[in-house]
């Protein structure tokens, strides 16, 4: 049962020990509200599920009271104590739905039950997700069901196209860290948000607006032979029909399923539609006749009074800037069909035309209105007409309950805003915002930002040349240059330009440095060094490497240390890393001499990375002890 709203009698507690304030908990899919019984009590709650990070609940049979604990993204936890476990159950489901809809965390299932059938990607991921959630909750890493994880991974491998190796790795890492309590499940999975979130992000919390196309032209499709007409109704169409024809909606609400079955409700509706659109006079007559002896049918045929009511209300709050009088002339209804042909057939007898046009234009307008009003329903609810009706009803309800005045002045400010926008552009002051000025004094600094080596040289050459320049004035130097030019002009080039010896020398020098570069180019092989190693070593190396990466990632990401939690985490990580470091050392010793060189080469960068981390750690420790202000500007 997918009800929009659940409301239960609960006690709202800020903490488990808190006696709590009695009241009612209202859960819709978007938000949860807590209204205390005593109006004067301050503890109200009205928040969107967006902000709920995850939720836990006490198990049935455990001697605890039935409690639901919702943790918000800010880490605040709202605890609701229910009267019975079934209440809890209901709310739990609802919450789960809501949360899964907001895409944060999917609805939890009891970890112990193993899914029988091949799960879909989402489900699977949600399970993996859930897995981590639950673990995160009961934080003692001991009760981790290893097989479970494996199972999910195996499955997920089928679903997501992750390489076997990757899974293998993941699993190993998990074993290595989570089991040994170096990382908590939460942390472990947090870095893999991508993997998990890959699909979960797909089903976004966005709701689509109403389609602008008119679905509800339920066109009768006739097959030539029999005179049987078939109408096709998708939930979407139904929804639109409901939205645009309140009367039908109302009828549906009260007739189905009590008085008549869904099916013949719609068949009636369609018949009515058909009769309405029937062009021939006699068909119209027939309609009259039938309507006479069938009040439901009549109900479809007679003009919709609800609509009329609404339009009246609407008229009251039309945007002041546009005057309806002006549009009077623009009523094209005197043209046949505004040139629009509704359903293919052009020939309309004079008699019906007027009416037909009216209906058409009305429907157009009505549709436009609905689209603009935009009471969207989520895709999940487009399952069956029943739910559609329900949902729509609620949304309607929501609107109606909001009393007239509020509605009105809500309208007013909307109007005022609109009219503000409607202001003719020319009259508007140019709204482009002031720009930030930039004052750069000395572009030379940018050169100085060049690499020091070259910088220095250029600098001290400048120093070098300066004195020379000084002792020889500009005039003289120019003169000397001009002399040398005229020298060439008179005597021509020095001949020969270069002596053979020099030439040979230069060429050989150049050739030498060419060939020298060639060698270390040639040294760069096509296949990576790893592949040259025997598999076992390679495996081990990679294993260490990946785990190292994992640790480091956690390590660095947990700076700057703001909470004690992080502090402990870091220290944990540090120990783990030092462990790996020693392991690496062993590995290096263990390998055979012929490979040792490469292995050491490969290991060196890892160790460097480790050292960097360690040093950083120590530095931080000193800072912490020294209470230096450094951390505040984030020098991590």
């Amino acid at each position, binding site marked *: 049962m997918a009800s929009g709203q659940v409301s239960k009698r609960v006690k709202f507690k800020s903490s488990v020990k808190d006696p709590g304030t009695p009241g009612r908990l209202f859960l819709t899919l978007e938000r949860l509200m807590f209204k205390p019984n005593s109006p004067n009590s301050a503890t109200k709650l009205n928040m969107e599920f967006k902000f709920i990070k995850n939720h836990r609940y006490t198990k049935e049979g455990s001697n605890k009271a039935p409690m639901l604990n919702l943790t918000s993204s800010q880490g605040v936890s709202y605890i609701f104590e229910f009267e019975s476990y079934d209440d809890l159950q209901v709310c739990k489901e609802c919450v789960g739905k809501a949360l899964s809809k907001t895409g944060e965390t999917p609805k939890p299932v009891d970890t112990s039950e193993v899914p029988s059938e091949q799960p879909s990607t989402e489900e699977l991921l949600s399970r993996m997700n859930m897995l981590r959630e639950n673990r995160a909750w009961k934080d003692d890493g001991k009760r981790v069901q290893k097989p479970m994880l494996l199972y999910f991974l195996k499955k997920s491998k089928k679903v997501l196209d992750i390489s076997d190796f990757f899974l293998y790795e993941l699993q190993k890492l998990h074993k290595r860290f989570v089991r040994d309590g170096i990382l908590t499940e939460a942390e472990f999975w947090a870095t893999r948000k991508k993997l998990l979130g890959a699909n979960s992000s797909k089903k976004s919390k966005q709701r689509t607006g109403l389609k602008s196309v008119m679905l509800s032209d339920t066109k009768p499709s006739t097959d030539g032979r029999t005179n049987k007409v078939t109408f096709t109704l998708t939930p979407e169409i139904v929804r639109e029909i409901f939205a645009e024809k309140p009367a039908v909606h109302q009828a549906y609400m009260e007739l189905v399923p009590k008085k008549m079955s869904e099916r013949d409700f719609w068949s009636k509706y369609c018949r009515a539609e058909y009769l309405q659109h029937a062009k021939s006079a006699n068909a119209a007559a027939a309609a009259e006749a039938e309507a006479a002896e069938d009040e439901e049918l009549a109900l479809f045929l007679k003009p919709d009074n609800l609509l009329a009511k609404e339009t009246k209300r609407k008229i009251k709050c039309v945007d002041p800037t546009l005057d309806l009088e002006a549009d009077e002339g623009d009523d094209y209804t005197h043209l046949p069909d505004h040139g629009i042909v509704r359903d293919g057939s052009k020939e309309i007898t004079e008699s019906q035309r007027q009416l037909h046009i009216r209906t058409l234009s009305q429907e157009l307008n009505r549709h436009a209105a609905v689209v603009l009003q935009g009471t969207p329903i989520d895709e999940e609810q487009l399952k069956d007409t029943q739910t559609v009706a329900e949902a729509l009803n609620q949304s309607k309800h929501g609107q109606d309950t909001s009393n007239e005045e509020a509605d009105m002045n809500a309208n007013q400010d909307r109007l005022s805003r609109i009219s503000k926008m409607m202001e003719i552009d020319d009259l508007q002051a140019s709204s482009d915002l002031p720009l930030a000025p930039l004052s750069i004094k000395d572009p030379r600094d940018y050169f100085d930002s060049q690499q020091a080596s070259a910088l220095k040289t250029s600098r001290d050459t400048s120093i070098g040349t300066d004195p020379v320049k000084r002792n020889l004035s500009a005039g003289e130097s120019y003169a000397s240059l001009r002399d040398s030019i005229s020298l060439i002009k008179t005597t021509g080039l020095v001949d020969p330009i270069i002596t*053979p010896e020099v030439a040979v020398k230069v*060429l050989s020098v150049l*050739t030498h440095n*060419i060939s020298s570069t060639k060698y270390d180019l040639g040294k760069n092989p096509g296949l990576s060094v790893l592949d040259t190693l025997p598999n076992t070593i390679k495996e081990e190396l990679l294993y260490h490497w990946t785990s190292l990466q994992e640790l480091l990632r956690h390590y660095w990401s947990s700076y700057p240390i703001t909470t004690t939690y992080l502090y402990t985490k870091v220290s944990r990580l540090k120990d783990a890393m030092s462990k790996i470091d020693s392991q690496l050392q062993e590995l290096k010793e263990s390998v055979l001499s012929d490979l040792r060189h490469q292995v050491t080469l490969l290991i060196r960068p890892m160790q460097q990375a480790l050292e960097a981390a360690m040093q950083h750690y120590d530095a931080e420790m000193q800072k912490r002890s020294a209470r230096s202000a450094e951390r505040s500007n984030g020098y991590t």
Partner: protein
Amino acid sequence: MPQVRIIAKNFMDMVASLPAMKLDRLYQNAFICEAILRSLPPLAKKYVVQMLFFDGPISGKLLEEWVLADGVTKHKVAIDRLIQLRIFTEAVDKKRESSYKLNQTFQVNLQKHLTNGGVLPREPMASTVRLPSLEELDTYAHEQWEVGSSSLCFHYPSHLHCSGQAEKPTNLSSSMMRIFQRGLLTQRDKDAPRLTEGGFQFLLMDTNAQLWYIIRDYISNSEERGTDPADLISFLLELSFHVTGEAYNMNTLTEIQRNAIKELADLGLVKLQQGRKESWFIPTKLATNLSVSLTDSSSRKQFASSLMILVGMFFMVIVIMHATGHVVVETNFRIYAYSSSKLHCEILRLFSKIEYQLPNLIVGAITKESLYTAFDNGITADQIISFLQQNAHPRVAERLPSVPENVTDQIRLWEADLNRVEMTSSHLYDEFPSRDTFEAACDFAREWNSLLWEDSKKMRLVVKAEIHMNMREFLRGQK
């Protein structure tokens, strides 16, 4: 009639084919050195230049150091070429290490050229008399061709059946005329002369190649006229470094050169002028472009007949006349040629259907028929396309492709259509006495892999003609 065959693929091959001592003599002339250097492949150029100031030999290894793995072949080619032209002299020492040394004269010449530029054997005369302007020169060159053209334009396919060499070209010198005469017509008994296959192709060639063909032919005939080709070559090259429009005194020329230059004047390469006491010659654009065409190492099909040369001359004229391209091809296979030249019209007519001719515009269409006639005349699709591309109107040439793809493709397709069927002369064998002889025959044919077709039911097979003999032998053996 005697056909002159020239094996040289381009000028450099020709030079390379000269005997050693003649080569060395060529290298005496700085300009020839320059021209030849320019004609070398890039890598070779590089080697020469960077060895310009070496006195000793340089080892091949050293050079190869500079070449990346994928350039080794280029390296070899370059070296070969250099040795071929005797610019490098190879020396192989006992360790099979080859080392190279630059040709002495060549080296010295180039060095000189670098330091104090090339020195022409003759200075331009102080312009005592009024020299013709460049335009005048061009028109002069043009007229020279016109002379020849008058004699030839009757041999265009369009005018096939006009009576052939009715009027002789008047003032072409006899030696030149001989060149033209030779192979001018492929004259089957008594019916009108016609262009050879080469003729058509020649029409579609680019200018410099054509210029080169004339000269090459001219040179190749030089022996008959008892002049040393080497001299001619050097002279021509020299000529090409003269300044267009400058006047040079005739007295500075050797006897041979004087003869040569008269004939060249007929070609319009130079203009001769007779002063009161002395005479001088003025190189035209054509002359100064010689080296360009010479160094152009495009290896094109060879044609023997000097007729093409003459045709080529008109072609060149046109290129001179409107230096810019002129043809616009539209996707609907229409050709618009902005030209008033008759010859142009003729050239287009080779492969397209000329629809009408406005004062300055020729409108034609490429049709299947027109192309087929072209193909019959041995013109290939590529030649046509390249012609269209090379003469594309500048405005069109800007955008690529200058000729619409659909046109080029269609032309290629049509050509392909022609070669769909290929002929192989063959023999049919049937009425085999027994199946196994038949089989044996088949196998035999197969292993000569010349079995074209077999029909085991009717016991017939077709084999290539060339193994007919062996087949017969084999079958005899079977009996």
